[in-house]
């Protein structure tokens, strides 16, 4: 499958290009300011530690999952194991029916985006309201998040004014502070009326049976405090062994995501309210989701993609994401992370163009707080895709091309001749070759050069220069 044409629409939209470029640029600046060695001398040490903790946890995952379950249960919570999204929705719909619940409030969770939970609950007649401001806006627009951390990154205050007027029936308001207060008012009512609060989880602490949530707005606190029932939905990879490990991860997460030393609210929640407590949920459920994760776990190399803590830093630093934005990726995860994990969860050949849509510049790996080797994984995907295509008898032309190249390389005289011909053909325009000349600009050569500008070949080859130099001396 080739890349979708709608990428061209994104590229041809200057305001959108500017919005994405500016927003990701700011996030990059914010991060840089708080990880530089003067303010955080042990940043690299923390990354190494985070990587080691995640590796260890995943290598012993069955043990930690059982430990987590035992501790959640001991504190009066219940663990629900789900193989896929349908099981999660099935559980929540049954729970809502049983508890006579009509309204669910949600705090931001990429895991529930993954399984289209909102749509499934709405289909069952349960009103489901996103409460993170960005998520609230895109839910009103019936869109998917544009960015893991900043879901409405592509929208302007005027877009927000439009959707608020249309969907909330309020006076048109374009001042961002006032728009925020409209959302606060609307959502406060929802919080206080909701029967069930659904959250995700940034971390699960096995030794405590705890769910850790990091937010800035306070919506996760309200989601897990106001309704009578709290349901946390988390992928099985979210575990860390001990609370003390959070000291490493919390220092990295906020800094990598938005340049904050800590997010405003970090909640460490274990089970329902206890004896004597005045507020907090009366019931607590932890939903553990597999949905392909165990399959990724089985691959020793690709396992590291499960280390991800969803900070979004690789998106901000990716030259491809910054041009094509978040809605041209095939799944809810975009950027380098999306390019690595979408093929793993949706099938390698499902969007086989995706691992190739990268310059392999390595910026993502440099900023990843848990040191996932994203470019290496993309290369492995490419290899697998090429092999699959070859096995299907596809990609013959490319193979022929490389054979020809290899043959040429073994014949120096012919190689030199080809080089001379090349320098005539590819003399370029103003030092750059933007397309193949004349009749040669056809077929795969045309397709390849249509997206790539290259410096024109020099008039004299290295061999010629070398010969001249030697004859001079």
């Amino acid at each position, binding site marked *: 499958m080739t890349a979708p044409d709608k990428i061209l629409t994104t590229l041809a939209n200057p305001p959108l290009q500017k919005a994405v470029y500016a927003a990701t640029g700011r996030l990059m600046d914010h991060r840089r300011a708080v990880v530089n060695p003067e303010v955080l001398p042990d940043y690299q040490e923390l990354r190494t530690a985070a990587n080691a903790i995640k590796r260890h946890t995943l290598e012993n995952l069955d043990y930690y999952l059982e430990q987590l379950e035992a501790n959640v249960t001991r504190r009066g919570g219940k663990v629900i194991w789900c193989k896929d999204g349908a099981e999660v929705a099935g559980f929540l719909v049954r729970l809502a029916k049983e508890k006579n619940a009509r309204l669910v409030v949600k705090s931001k969770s990429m895991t529930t985006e993954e399984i289209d939970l909102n749509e499934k609950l709405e289909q069952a007649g349960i009103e489901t309201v996103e409460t993170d401001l960005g998520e609230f806006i895109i839910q009103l627009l019936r869109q998917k998040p544009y960015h893991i951390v900043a879901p409405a990154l592509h929208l302007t205050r005027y877009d927000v004014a439009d959707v608020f007027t249309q969907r909330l029936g309020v006076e048109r308001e374009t001042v961002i502070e006032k728009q925020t207060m409209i959302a606060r008012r609307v959502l406060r009512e929802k919080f206080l009326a909701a029967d069930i609060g659904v959250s995700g989880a940034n971390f699960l602490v096995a030794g405590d049976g*705890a769910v850790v949530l990091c937010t800035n*707005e306070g919506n996760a606190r309200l989601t897990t*405090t106001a309704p009578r029932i709290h349901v946390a939905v988390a992928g099985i990879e979210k575990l860390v062994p001990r609370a003390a490990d959070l000291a490493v991860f919390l220092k990295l997460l906020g800094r990598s995501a938005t340049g904050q030393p*800590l997010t405003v609210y970090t909640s*460490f929640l274990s089970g329902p*309210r206890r004896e004597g407590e005045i507020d907090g949920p009366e019931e607590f459920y932890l939903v553990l989701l597999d949905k392909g994760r165990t*399959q990724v776990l089985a691959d020793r190399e690709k396992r590291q993609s499960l280390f991800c803590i969803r900070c979004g830093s690789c998106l901000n630093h990716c030259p491809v994401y910054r041009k094509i934005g978040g809605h041209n990726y095939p799944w809810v995860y975009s950027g380098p992370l999306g390019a690595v994990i979408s093929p793993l969860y949706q099938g390698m050949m499902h969007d086989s163009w995706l691992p190739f849509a990268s310059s392999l510049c390595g910026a993502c790996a440099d900023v990843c707080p848990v040191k996932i080797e994203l470019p290496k994984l993309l290369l492995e995907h490419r290899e697998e895709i090429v092999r699959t295509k070859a096995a299907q008898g596809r990609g013959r032309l490319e193979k022929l091309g490389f054979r020809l190249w290899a043959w040429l390389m073994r014949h120096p005289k012919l190689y030199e001749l080809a080089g001379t011909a090349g320098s005539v053909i590819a003399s370029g325009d103003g030092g750059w070759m933007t397309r193949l000349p004349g009749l040669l600009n056809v077929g795969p050569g045309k397709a390849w050069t249509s997206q790539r500008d290259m410096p024109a070949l020099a008039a004299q080859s290295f061999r010629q220069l070398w010969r001249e130099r030697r004859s001079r001396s």
Partner: protein
Amino acid sequence: MSREIILERVRTALGRSAGQAPAAPPEARVRIPETGVEERIEQFRRALEALAGKFHVAASKQEARARAAGLLEGRAAVASNSPYLAECGITELEGVRSGFTREAELREACATAGAGITSADYGLADTGTLVMLSSAREARMISLLPPMHVALIPREIILTGLDELFTILPNPAELTSSMVLITGPSRTADIEQILVRGVHGPGEIHVIVV
């Protein structure tokens, strides 16, 4: 059952068997700087103010009470059942309601109050953070629903940072069902990355260090 299927898949993926002990985990990484209490208070102030939180020092409990009264400016307020607030005389201030034991009443009061007053279990100097363990003494909503949060804390509870916190509390779940770290006022930047304070939680936070 999905539980058994998932656990079996995990074990197969890892080549492990049921009940097998885990490898030794990497040693927890703990770095606690040697910092005196005055320096910790100063760090706390700087970090909190960088987030537009307001920092106050009171020489005595009486002064703290006067400070709090000045901040409230007659606003209706809800105070938690923390004994420390009673010691400071906060619960006797005019317009302050306290002693809630029933959720519906607490919720009603918090939803309409102009300020919530609490203490905290710890402070974290390097980030200007309040650490709050929920209990019968500290309900969750008081620091959450009103538009302003005022916290009174004794100076000696300010720790250096996260590493020290988790050294003192290696298993927070033993003590509470909810530990919340509060670092500055509620904020968002979801529309055009413009910073707005007070989205769902309090837009104003005051910490009075006694």
